[in-house]
């Protein structure tokens, strides 16, 4: 996430300040989940026997923080979660990654983790759809499935004994992502939910919230069906691939572009994600939809969503929404 600078005038600064303060006061766990800086003492109930986790230190009988972040408690374990932390994978996470390398019988993907994740050839559906043993020919044709720098959606299968991460992309909903754009945000802004692959019908856009902070916003692609459809699709793909590698006339290429309306929706959603990420709010489908509706109701031009006025409006909107939510609960 690149650092951004907002130039706000005085009133906008005040409004933003007020909205953020309101949000802070509304967050229910403001006592035990205090944010700490280095050398702050962590309030702990010592009689219970506390397990000191990452980012803590026992100093003169007190538990002291060694990192700047938020205190997390799980039963007896107390640890510090930093805000700009790297992605911490868990089995079953859906992630979006970029292929960095093709190695024997596997692809290596960059997923904003400390090391590249591995997607084995055997964990990937073959293009002809048949379940069979991978042969040497399949290994040589790996590039026809994924090339370097391709964007891939996959699921975390688990960790190997040596600590490396393994992925699988066996279902039809996973695989290569084209016709769209990837956004990078902090991983902790994407909360783990039941569903990460969303199809927004009113926009005709696929939205994939990868747990590693890579968000994919793209044109909707129907999940490929059974064997017969695979073959016809493959024939089409071969045609477009060969024609794109040679000189394509202007009209042909224009035909393959995304339609303008879908593109506008994609850009609006992408800008909504950028605004939310820069403000530090969690990115969920509901919030994204609300932000997009807010921008369309104000008749803002898509690029104006990245201006300072919209940032302030989004912060205020989020504050009012949270306050209404807590009022409903309480």
């Amino acid at each position, binding site marked *: 996430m*690149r*650092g*951004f*600078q907002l*130039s706000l*005038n005085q009133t906008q600064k005040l409004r933003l300040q007020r909205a953020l303060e309101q949000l802070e006061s509304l967050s229910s766990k403001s006592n035990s989940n205090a944010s700490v800086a280095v050398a702050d003492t962590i309030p702990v109930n010592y009689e219970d026997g506390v397990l000191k986790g990452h980012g803590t230190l026992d100093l003169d009988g007190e538990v002291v923080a060694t990192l700047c972040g938020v205190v997390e408690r799980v039963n007896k374990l107390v640890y510090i979660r930093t805000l700009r932390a790297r992605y911490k994978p868990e089995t079953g996470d859906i992630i979006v990654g*970029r292929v960095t390398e093709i190695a024997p019988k596997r692809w290596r993907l*960059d997923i904003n983790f400390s090391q590249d994740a591995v997607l084995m050839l055997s964990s990937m559906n073959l293009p002809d759809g048949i379940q069979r043993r991978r042969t040497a020919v399949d290994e040589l044709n790996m590039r026809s499935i994924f*090339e*370097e*720098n*391709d*964007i891939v959606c996959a699921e975390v299968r688990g960790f190997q004994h040596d600590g490396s991460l393994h992925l699988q992309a066996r279902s039809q909903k996973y695989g*290569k*992502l*084209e*016709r*769209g*754009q*990837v956004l990078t945000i902090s991983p902790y802004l994407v909360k783990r939910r039941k569903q990460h692959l969303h199809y927004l019908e009113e926009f005709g856009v696929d939205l994939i919230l990868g747990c590693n902070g890579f968000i994919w916003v*793209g044109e909707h692609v129907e999940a490929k069906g059974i064997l017969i459809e695979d073959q016809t699709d493959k024939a089409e793909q071969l045609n477009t691939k060969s024609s*794109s590698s*040679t*000189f*394509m*006339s*202007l009209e042909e*290429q*224009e035909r*393959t*572009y*995304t339609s*303008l309306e879908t*593109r*506008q929706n994609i*850009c*609006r959603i*992408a*800008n909504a994600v*950028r605004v939310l990420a820069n403000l530090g709010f969690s990115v969920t489908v509901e919030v994204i939809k609300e932000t997009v509706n807010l921008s369309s109701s104000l008749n803002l*031009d*898509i*690029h*104006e*969503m*990245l*201006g*300072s006025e919209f940032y302030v409006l989004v912060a205020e909107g989020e504050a009012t929404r949270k306050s209404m939510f807590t009022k409903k609960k309480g």
Partner: protein
Amino acid sequence: MVGLSVGEKHFIQGGIAQDLRTDGRRRLTYRPFNVETGVIPQANGSARVRLGGTDVIASVKAELGKPSPSQPDKGKGRGGEELSTELSGALQHCLLGGKSGAVGDMEVLTNVLGAGIDLSSLVVVEGKVCWDLYIDGLVVSSDGNLLDALGAAIKAALTNTGIPKVEVAVGASGDGLPEVDISDDEYLQFDTSGVPVIVTLTKVAQYHVGRHYIVDATLEEESQMSSAVSVSVSGQGRICGLIKRGGAGLDPSVILDMISVAKHKPLKKSHDYLGTPDITQPSSIQNSSWMQYLLYTNKLTELLE
């Protein structure tokens, strides 16, 4: 800089063809930019320009030195930047107008400053003492379009520059250097309306011949660029320099198109913002929607302290 997949490249090119880039901008729309002056108090003049994710700082330092023998009645200027060779060469050509033969960083901006500022105001004692201006540029973060940002930063820094008034001690000096007394209070300022502003137009071409070019490319769009033309335009609308980068060829009609677009860009309106002490002065509006966009996005925090 991470690579881009074929699908993403196709998406970017489609966006440019349909006049809707990935962040929703049109082809000829700039990102919101922000200019601050006086960021380096120890320098005589400084400015910081933020253009989207690109962040550059330019500083001007003035020191007393000896004028060059060929121009005893003018001051001198020197420039230095930490840029790749290609960009540094491009920057010189843009500001300089193609007169420089050497690709070195030194001695280049003298001619530009001669065009933009009255260098005779920099002289203290003719033939013996003059002010040397050292202009440095630093790229803090790059998100594409460095040339435009640096050009704007240099112009703003020059506007912000204050050269201390100097009193020359009366007395026979002969060949030695005369005594000078640098005042701490009074400052001279330049009229920088002649200093040009750079506009870069990037062409992201595919295999076919397209006529679309964009202004203010982000890093991803720049990685796809086939060629780029940078034009430096002075406040009076005159072209001071032009350079083309990139390996692909350009049709001459496309270049003429680009030049006329560069002359009427909103960044040109920033000549008035970057060059005048009073930003409330309205400038002549060529295209009212550009002016509205300008007022919405360009926020000047402090112009002259």
